[in-house]
C-alpha cells in the first residue's frame, strides 16, 4: 500500500533530465574516440597488410615447425656447457635484481612526491634517473655495456641492474606515494630527521609491498637475462644467437623450449612467493 506522501512515478515532471556526460566533457570524449579510430585506420592503411599473405602465414608456420624445428635437439640443452650458461643467466638475474633494488629503494624514496626530502631538487633528479633507466630497453643497455666493458657476464649484470632500477624504482615510488601520511607526521613530530622518518614512518608501511615487488623484479629480470646474451652480455642468449646464425634450427628450438620452461618455473616460484608474502600482511 502506497502512502499518500510517496511520489508516484507519473507525478514526476518529465522536464527534469540528467546526463552522465555533461556537454563540454562529452564532446571531448567523442572527439577522442574519433581520433583513436582514425589513427587505427591510418596505421592499418600505412602498414598495407596484405590479407591473403597474412592469413596464409599460419599454414606456413605449421610447415616450418614440422620441417625444420622438429624435433628439438634436447641433447644439446643437456650439455654441461649449456647448463653452465643457464646457471650464469640465473646468477646474472639475481645480481642485477639485487643491485638494481639496492639503488631503487633510495630512488623510490627520493622520487615519491609526498615524502621526498627535497621536492625542488632531489625529487626531479630521482624521477629523471628512474625514467632514463626505464626509457632505454634492456637489450640496448646490454649493447651499451658490452661496448664499455667487453663481452661477458659483467656487462649483463650492469644491463640488468639498469633495467631493475627503472622497473622497481617506479613501482617503489608509487607504493610510497600511496602510504598513510599520519604516522609519517607523527614520527616527524618527534624531532626525527628524514632518514629516521624513512626507517620508522615509511618503510614499515611498504615493507611487504616492496618484498612482493622485489620478487616480481627478479622474475622479470630473469626473463630479460635470457636475451641479453644475444648481444654478448653473458648467459644462454649467446647460444641462441650462435645457433640462429648457423641455422641450427633444431638446436634453436631446444633453446627456445628451455627458455619457456625456465621462465614458467621462475614465474611459478615468483607467484607462489608473492602469495606467501601477501598473506604475511
Amino acid at each position, binding site marked *: 500500500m502506497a502512502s499518500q506522501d510517496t511520489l508516484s512515478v507519473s507525478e514526476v515532471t518529465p522536464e527534469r533530465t540528467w546526463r552522465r556526460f555533461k556537454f563540454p566533457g562529452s564532446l571531448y570524449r567523442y572527439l577522442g574516440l574519433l581520433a583513436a579510430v582514425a589513427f587505427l585506420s591510418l596505421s592499418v592503411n600505412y602498414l598495407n597488410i596484405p590479407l591473403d599473405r597474412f592469413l596464409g602465414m599460419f599454414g606456413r608456420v605449421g610447415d616450418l615447425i614440422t620441417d625444420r624445428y622438429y624435433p628439438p635437439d634436447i641433447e644439446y640443452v643437456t650439455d654441461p656447457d649449456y647448463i653452465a650458461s643457464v646457471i650464469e643467466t640465473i646468477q646474472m638475474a639475481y645480481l642485477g635484481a639485487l643491485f638494481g633494488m639496492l639503488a631503487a629503494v633510495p630512488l623510490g624514496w627520493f622520487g615519491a612526491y609526498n615524502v621526498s626530502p627535497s621536492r625542488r631538487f632531489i625529487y626531479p633528479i630521482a624521477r629523471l634517473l628512474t625514467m632514463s633507466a626505464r626509457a632505454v630497453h634492456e637489450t640496448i643497455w646490454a649493447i651499451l655495456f658490452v661496448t664499455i666493458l667487453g663481452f661477458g657476464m659483467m656487462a649483463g649484470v650492469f644491463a640488468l641492474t639498469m633495467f631493475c632500477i627503472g622497473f622497481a624504482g617506479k613501482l617503489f615510488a608509487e607504493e610510497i606515494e600511496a602510504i598513510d601520511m599520519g604516522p609519517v607526521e607523527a*614520527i616527524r613530530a*618527534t624531532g626525527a630527521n628524514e*632518514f629516521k622518518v624513512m626507517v620508522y614512518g615509511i618503510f614499515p608501511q611498504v615493507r611487504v609491498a616492496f618484498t612482493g615487488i622485489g620478487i616480481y623484479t627478479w622474475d622479470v629480470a630473469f626473463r630479460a637475462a635470457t636475451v641479453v646474451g644475444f648481444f654478448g652480455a653473458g648467459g644462454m642468449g649467446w647460444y641462441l644467437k650462435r645457433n640462429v646464425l648457423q641455422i641450427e634450427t633444431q638446436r634453436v628450438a631446444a633453446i627456445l623450449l628451455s627458455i619457456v620452461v625456465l621462465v614458467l618455473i621462475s614465474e611459478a616460484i615468483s607467484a607462489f612467493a608473492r602469495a606467501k608474502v601477501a598473506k604475511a600482511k
Partner: protein
Amino acid sequence: MPILSVSDLKVRYSTSGPEILKGISFDVEPDDFFAIIGPSGAGKSTLIRCINRLVKPTSGKIMLYGDDVLRLGARELRRVRRSTGMIFQEFNLVNRMSVMDNVLSGRLGHVGNLRALFRQFSRQDIARALSVLDRVGLSDHVDKRADELSGGQRQRVGIARALMQDPKLLLLDEPTSSLDPKISREVMALIVEIAKEYRVPVLCNIHDVKLAMEFCNKMIGLQDGVKMFDGPTSAMNEGKLNDIYAMEVL
C-alpha cells in the same frame, strides 16, 4: 614567562587560497591545560600544527621555549620538535610495528642514525618505555602489533610515545574524537593526570565542549580562523558558546 607565545598568526595553505587563520594571538603558561574549541573547519588543527611547524604559517610569530619557531633552521627545528609531544585524533601509530617500537620511536630525536636504523635503543630508553607503558596501563601488550589493539589502547600508545620525548609541552589534536564517549572520558582523564604528574603544559584541540569545560583550565574559542574567546574556563558561558558555534548551527 609563558612557555608558548603566539602572536598575530596568519595561515594560508596556498597563495591564492582563503586565509584559514586570521591573526591569532595567545599565551600558554607552564601549568596550563589549555583547550582550543570551535566548530569543525574553524582552523583548530591548523593552529596546533603550526606550533611545531608541521604547517608553515604565512606570517606571525611563535615563541616556544624562548625559540622563534618560524625562524629556525632544520636542525634547530628538530631540537624544538623533540621536546614537544604530539597526540593525534587518528593515533598515527605505525600499525606494522610493535607497541614497544612505536613507543621507542618517541626517542628518535635523541638517538643517532645508525642506532635508529638497527633499533638499538639505550637501556635507559627501554626502561623508560616500560615504565611509561605501565603508567598508561599497557604493560601486558608490549610486544603486540599496534593494529591488534582497540582504539582506546592505541591512543594510550600515542600518549606513551609522546611521554617518551620527555616533553616540555604536549600538543593534542582532538585526542578523543575517534573514541566512544566512555573511553573518551577515560583517556581524557588519563591525559589530565599525566600532565600533572609529569608537569607538562598542554594545548589541546577539542570538539566536545563538555569535556573541555570539565578538564581544561583555560580555553580559546575559534570560529572561522578568528579568536572569539580567550580566558579561564570559568568565564565561559552558554551565550559565548552559542556565538562560537553559531556557524555550525546554520
